[in-house]
């Protein structure tokens, strides 16, 4: 994203040529004083940007910088895209949701695979579809639980003045509201007949998320705060406004509780305001008897439930007759308190479905929509009718749309692509990745649309694309990357490749992390990837001097090439010096390399070689004849042993010169000397071959050896004859 520093200390992206809309401006609080000299932008984890703002270097304005003692720059983290509504969810809560939801997701996909195995054809049969739908419903419910259970602390003694629900332990989160909305429309088929009532319930839970100020909930919250200090509630216009608002969106229990706070219930005033109280109570009764087209009501909620349309219409007609009867009752004349009379009649108008009163009582278009569904068109069915109604309400009450309202509008316009895109914008990649299964649960059309392989997406489908986006977000965090494979493995086109890249990118410094990565490789049968990882771990450890661990990983990955390279290097080194300390090292290394190495001799040779070297050392320091003889014996043994590597012949022969030049007579007999001469001859021949390992020997080394051997042969022949 290109950016230029501006005077107003905010970053402004360049306007794109030909775009009709002005580019959005996001002010960035960096707290530095202008001018900003340089800006560096780099990607951090996920969709986090690191923006570094630097002030001019001090040499330009040295004096100034010293004066205000100001910092020279600042790095700011900017969270891009997604999660507009979800700014209040902490990072750890997000990770928690990721951990918990992977179980449900994996379970659903296991079921999908097993269902697909049972079926022979391409399409699922009817019973399988039913199973599938049930699994999806369970999945949806488990995800809903993960997003937060509304744990309510009910006080033992309820204060009559508390008409609003006590504040939930966890504030409702937008993601959950969006999830429930999708569940209502896409999965819960049994509820289709009472869809309007489901939406009423939904709004009750999430009304506060629509807008900060302009909602019924916010109106009631203000009233709740004030009500304890009000002496005569019925004189306050806020009381009647709140009542009308609560009634319009169908919070009947709140209405009943509020009405009971009316002053006429006061025992002191009861005698004077008997008629008034009768009217209030009559409205309470009518409100609590409101017919509702739904199978049941939760505890504490008011209304009378009707299961079938037929019964409901009958009940509704009867009830409306009662409501209009009360409206035209002669008792209103005897009600002396004017606000009470007006307020109650307003409530009756709302109950009768008067569009104007309803529009006045509600604040947001969605609330107006719900109240239309409740009082004016309770039998609205089908998305088209709802869509038209929603459009009408939006025109009547233009309010700022946010993620939730655009999501509802998208659902009603029956366009799954828009639904997913809106979700991604407002709630981030998590919900989209998980919602694809909801959207496709009952609709073959949507299933086709989202799961069709598309050439322009590299063979991936839209559903897979969203899954990959989510997996990428998971993979970018060191704590959640282990969750990503579960999603990548369900992506048939691109998932495998990305999974391999993800695994190969994991750090190899810590062996525990390597083991955890290998475990995932094992789970997804990625044998070659685990070999790669082990080789990388081996190289890292070897380079850092952890020879044991390095060799362990090479052996695990069966990396013959590197192991034999190590072995060759080892033997090269042995030829040079052989102090006790370094010998221990070699011995340890040989032991580690074990029999895996393709070098003849190995440990056995090394031990004999050391023994010989040791005894030779003693002789040089002035040893006895016996010691010299033993040394010679070891030399001959080494030379006779076919497992002695050829490259050790020359060092051995050079060492033998010391024995050959032993002062008190020849140590080697004729046959032994002949053996050494034979080896020397072989070596001279081998020297001509290009692959000969000569080491760093003096040019006349061979000649020296030959001379010493010849002298010794002469002495030995004399001695033996």
């Amino acid at each position: 994203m290109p950016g230029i520093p501006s005077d107003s200390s905010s970053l402004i992206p360049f306007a794109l040529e030909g775009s009709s809309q002005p580019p959005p401006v996001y002010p960035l609080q960096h707290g530095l004083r202008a001018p900003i000299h340089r800006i560096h932008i780099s990607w951090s984890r996920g969709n986090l940007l690191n923006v570094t703002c630097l002030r001019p270097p001090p040499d330009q304005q040295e004096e100034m910088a010293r004066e205000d003692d100001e910092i020279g720059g600042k790095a700011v983290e900017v969270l891009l895209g997604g999660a507009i509504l979800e700014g209040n969810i902490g990072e750890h809560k997000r990770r928690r949701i990721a951990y918990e939801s992977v179980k449900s997701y994996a379970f659903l996909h296991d079921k999908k695979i097993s269902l697909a195995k049972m079926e022979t054809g391409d399409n699922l049969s009817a019973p399988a579809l039913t199973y599938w739908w049930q699994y999806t419903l369970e999945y949806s419910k488990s995800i809903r639980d993960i997003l937060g259970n509304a744990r309510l602390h009910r006080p033992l003694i309820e204060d009559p003045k508390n008409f609003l629900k006590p504040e939930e332990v966890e504030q409702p989160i937008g993601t959950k509201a969006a999830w429930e909305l999708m569940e209502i429309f896409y999965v819960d088929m049994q509820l289709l007949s009472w869809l309007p009532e489901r939406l009423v319930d939904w709004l009750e839970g999430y009304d506060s998320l629509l807008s900060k100020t302009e909602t019924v909930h916010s109106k009631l919250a203000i009233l709740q705060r004030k009500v304890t200090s009000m002496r005569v509630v019925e004189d306050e216009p806020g009381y009647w406004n709140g009542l009308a608002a609560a009634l319009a969106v169908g919070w009947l229990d709140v209405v009943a509780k509020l009405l009971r706070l009316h002053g006429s219930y006061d025992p002191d005033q009861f005698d004077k305001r008997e008629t008034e109280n009768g009217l209030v109570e009559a409205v309470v009764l009518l409100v609590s008897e409101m017919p509702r087209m739904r199978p049941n009501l939760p505890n504490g909620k008011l209304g009378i439930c009707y299961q079938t349309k037929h019964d409901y219409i009958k009940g509704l007609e009867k009830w409306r007759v009662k409501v209009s009867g009360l409206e035209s009752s002669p008792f209103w004349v005897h009600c002396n308190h004017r606000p009470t009379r007006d307020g109650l009649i307003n409530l009756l108008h709302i109950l009768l479905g008067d569009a104007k009163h309803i529009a006045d009582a509600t604040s947001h278009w969605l609330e107006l929509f719900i109240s239309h569904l409740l009082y004016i068109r309770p039998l609205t069915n089908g998305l088209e009718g709802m869509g038209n109604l929603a459009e009408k309400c939006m025109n009547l009450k233009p309010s700022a749309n946010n993620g939730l309202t655009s999501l509802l509008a998208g659902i009603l316009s029956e366009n799954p692509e828009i639904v997913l895109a809106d979700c991604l914008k407002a709630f981030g990649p998590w919900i989209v990745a998980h919602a694809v299964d909801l959207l496709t649960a009952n609709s073959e059309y949507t299933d086709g649309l989202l799961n069709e392989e598309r050439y322009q997406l590299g063979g991936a489908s839209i559903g897979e694309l969203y899954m990959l986006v989510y997996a990428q977000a998971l993979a970018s965090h060191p704590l959640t990357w282990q969750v990503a494979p579960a999603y990548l493995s369900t992506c048939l086109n691109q998932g495998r490749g990305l999974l391999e890249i993800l695994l190969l990118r994991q750090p190899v410094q810590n062996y525990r992390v390597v083991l955890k990565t290998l475990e995932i490789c094992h789970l997804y049968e990625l044998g070659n990837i685990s070999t790669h990882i082990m080789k990388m771990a081996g190289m890292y450890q070897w380079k850092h001097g952890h020879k044991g661990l390095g060799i362990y990983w090479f052996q695990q990955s069966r990396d013959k090439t590197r192991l034999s390279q190590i072995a060759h290097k080892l033997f090269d080194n042995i030829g040079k010096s052989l102090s006790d300390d370094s010998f221990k090292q070699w011995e340890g290394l040989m032991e580690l390399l074990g029999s895996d190495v393709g070098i003849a001799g190995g440990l056995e040779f090394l031990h004999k070689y050391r023994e010989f070297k040791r005894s030779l050392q003693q002789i040089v320091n002035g040893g006895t004849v016996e010691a010299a003889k033993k040394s010679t014996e070891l030399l001959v043994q080494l030379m006779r042993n076919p497992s002695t590597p050829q490259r050790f012949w020359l060092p051995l022969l050079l060492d033998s010169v010391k024995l050959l030049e032993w002062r008190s007579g020849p140590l080697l007999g004729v046959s032994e000397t002949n053996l050494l001469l034979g080896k020397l001859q072989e070596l001279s021949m081998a020297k001509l071959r290009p692959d000969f390992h000569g080491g760093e020997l003096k040019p006349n080394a061979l000649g020296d050896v030959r001379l010493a051997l010849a002298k010794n042969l002469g002495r030995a022949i004399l001695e033996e004859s």
Partner: protein
Amino acid sequence: MADSGDRRRFIYNLHEQSKPVGAVRWLPSVSPFLRLAAMSVLSPPAIEIHSFSSQSPNPNPDLNLVSSYPLPSSATSLTSFKSHNYTLIAASTSTGSLHIFSVNPYDGKIESQIISISDKDSFHCGPIQSIDVETSSTGECATAGEDGRVNLVLIGEDKVENFRVCESDGLVAYTAVKWGSPVEFVTGGVGPGLQWWDKRRPGGPVAQFKGVWGHGTVTGMIHSLDIHPSRKHTCVVGGSSGAVYAWDLRWQQQAITLAGTGLEAKSQPFSESEVWEVKYDAFTPQVSSTKVLPVMMCSEDGFLAVLQQDERPVQLLEEPCAINSFDIDPQNPSDVIVALEWESVGILSRGREETEMA
């Protein structure tokens, strides 16, 4: 494959931590009502002490953070012990330092850091993978590192002495260490071998066990060791490929397999992934005095189980994520605390109902 255990007798509570937890250890508690646990958290690296009330009427007592102390890098090993009526915690880090803290046993506040050693030359260079403190007499802390060094740290009244037992120049990487007696300890590392060391005989291990896992088809690492104070000659080992075996010093050539595809191919694999920690379980009754005592293990694939020789494993937990560490409360062996990969800590109480009925 395994008995899932009688879950009804368990009370298991999960506590979300919102940060990754490496290791967990119970702390000796003074009051039966207030229990303390230490845990090493990884980002940012620190030691934390949490408390919870075990007698509260609330069936889900919350873990409350009491105090925390930052570490220079992530902790690799954690142990708690009592010395001269002090409650102490020792932690080693991935940059080769050792830290010992004293903790107020009444409220769990970390009072001070009494020791902090970090020296690339004379101590460790690279991660210290395991530490163990000898508590019965000397109070010496053995440290074993990936750099192939084994050090003993003597915590004296006024000074700290540190001397090297082994320097392998990286040829061996040690991953586990455990004291068997005041003078003997066992180390384990890469490959299935174990080394038995005696302080009185310096220069090298006094006994070595060289096993071949899965007939040479599988090799692995040792992640954890435990020695029971009443059976100092037997060492129980947990490592790669779900292997849990016991090694008896008196029969050095053969180990007893408790679980895993490990040493003998005939044994049934219970878990096939890494066994991160093993500990003798004093709560499970012993079947026969001639057999290995019951052992609890936790694994990368989310199992917490009790293993017994020639018996089916009893599975206590099956989590969807790895169990990185666990600890059995020495004072109340029925209680187990576990650290889960997904930023949470679980507390499992076994047999609570039975005691209530009695």
